[in-house]
């Protein structure tokens, strides 16, 4: 996507150079221009203000909890509303574990989609398949949750977990009872949800790789796959890493689908078959039951931690992607 130059257009000359009546007209028109620019600037300033308001509010509301628990909040695991003790370690663990597991599943899929669509698919197939994959991003989160509860979990229980257990049941990762709602179910749902984002951005990154890269590799006698592996992918590496991190950001903040299938239990365990909890799910589940101020404040602190993590992750991803496609809203159609 080419970026058009947007140099400021020279302002009308001063009155001194225009002794004609038109000059007054020009100035009169200039008022309209100024008004226009002021209006647009005011609208554009709302986003930064919103961000400040969001952060400010989260900090203010989380303050009692921040003061009471300090940094301990992040690594203690007692979450006892009755006793007024709050430690968010299990949900931070659950958020990270489910998101990274999801990445593990989603990255090969998404890169497969992106590489197939840019390098191997026949031309007529590219647009329709890209549209279908982007449709995955259009499915509402709560519908993913519904599908997870009534289709995915029964499927896992019947066809996936027993053979997995037979094969690798001795490892701590597959120990314990499988109730259905579990880290594994959450991670799979998350993986399907973030595939379209990673695929769309990676695809645009790969499309931005100059054709000469491929031609040079093919000209040197590389096979098509070797051209992709040695010339195309390394060229787009920063952008692809950005795409993956963007997907991670999505996974970290996802709420409804995960809440519905992950089991919502304050626990840290190695087994992916055990129920877990995420920060977003904790807010969704407990916010309306938070009866004491401290409880509410602890939930706001969970929100603050979640927000800070996603902002940092997203900012990092954007900087990486911008390096490849400067300033362009890459993948905006999928977002």
């Amino acid at each position, binding site marked *: *996507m080419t970026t058009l130059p*947007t140099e400021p257009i020279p302002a009308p000359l001063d009155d001194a150079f225009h002794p004609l009546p038109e000059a007054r007209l020009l100035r009169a*028109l200039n008022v*309209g221009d100024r*008004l*226009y*620019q002021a209006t*647009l*600037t005011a*609208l*554009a*300033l709302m*986003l930064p203000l919103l*961000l400040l308001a969001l952060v400010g*509010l*989260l900090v203010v509301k989380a303050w009692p909890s921040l003061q009471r628990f300090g940094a301990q909040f992040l690594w203690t695991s007692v979450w006892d509303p009755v006793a007024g003790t709050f430690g968010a370690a299990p949900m931070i663990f659950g958020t990270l574990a489910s998101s990274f597991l999801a990445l593990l599943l989603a990255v*090969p*899929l*998404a*890169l*497969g*989609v992106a*590489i*197939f669509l840019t390098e*191997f*698919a026949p031309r007529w197939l590219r647009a329709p398949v890209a549209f279908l*994959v982007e*449709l*995955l991003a*259009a499915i*509402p*989160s*709560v*519908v993913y949750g519904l*599908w997870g*509860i009534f289709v995915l979990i029964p499927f896992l229980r019947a066809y996936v977990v027993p053979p997995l257990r037979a094969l690798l049941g001795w490892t701590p990762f597959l120990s314990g009872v499988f109730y259905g709602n579990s880290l594994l179910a959450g991670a799979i749902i998350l993986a399907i949800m973030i*595939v*379209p984002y990673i695929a769309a951005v990676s695809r645009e990154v790969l*499309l931005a790789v100059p054709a000469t890269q491929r031609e040079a590799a093919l000209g040197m006698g590389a*096979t*098509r*796959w070797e051209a992709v*592996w040695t010339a195309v992918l390394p060229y787009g590496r920063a952008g692809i890493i950005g795409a993956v991190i*963007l997907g991670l950001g999505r996974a970290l*903040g996802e*709420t*409804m689908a995960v809440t*519905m299938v992950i089991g919502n239990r304050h626990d840290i365990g190695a087994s992916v078959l055990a129920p877990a909890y995420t920060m*977003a799910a904790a807010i*969704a589940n407990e916010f*309306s039951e938070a009866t004491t101020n401290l409880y509410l404040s602890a939930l706001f602190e969970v929100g603050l931690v*979640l*927000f800070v993590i996603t*902002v940092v*992750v997203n900012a990092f991803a*954007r900087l990486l992607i911008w390096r490849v496609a400067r300033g362009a*809203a890459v993948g*905006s*159609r999928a*977002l």
Partner: protein
Amino acid sequence: MSARRLRRRFTSGLMTLLVCALCGVAVLALFLILGDLVVKGASSLDWNFFVKNPVPAGQAGGGVANAIVGTAIIVGIAALIGLPVGIGTGLYLAEYGSGRLGWTVRFIADVMNGTPSIVVGIFAWTWLVKPMGHFSALAGSVALAVLMVPMIARTSEEMIRLVPHSLREAALALGYPRWRTSLRIVARTALAGIVTGCLVGVARIAGETAPLLFTALGNLNFSTSLLQPMQALSLQIFTYATGPFEDWHRMAWAAALVLMGLVLLLSLAARWAIRQRHVAR
């Protein structure tokens, strides 16, 4: 040398197949989900489903009329709030956004595009629900609008930037003031693209649930008052899906099918709008 050549060609073929298969898996996932929605949802769809309100669990019949109307109202108000701000920001970024402020706003928009929606939900709760003393559809709309603005801003900017510079110069050379050039020539030319961005944005927030949990809350009855709790399809699906009754699960699938249909319709409309003026690659 020949064996090596054979191996390389074999690897290439194998990886081509693998990549093709991975893509197939992604598309298959989409069809599985959509297929299940149709199979499990369609049988519960009848006229009553669209015109009746929910009945208590155990009673036969009932529908989600209140949720359908609620979604339309909440999303409509959100669009009324979010679209002008989003498009205005997009215009700013495209017209004046080359400086530091432009860079900052663009960056913030991209970063906020990934804000967890639940955080926006508690944000709206604190600013609107708590001071007003009760849950309201309006608070839900505001939360959705907040989610919408960054996305609309960036897609609008992209679309406006695609307008050839010569068009702008021609208008200015004819003596058009800059603001009229921007609105009547540039934005007008990019209109199809902007509409597409808006439709995609609306489609995305139409299915949001998390920001509505503590704002619109949900409502068992039919309500059109913006200052009262209001039901939305997504909230209804959540309640029904996590509830214990078989009937509810059936209703959840049907409601999900309706919501998905709505979102698909908006997505297809967006695609159709962009076809009107081919700017995409």
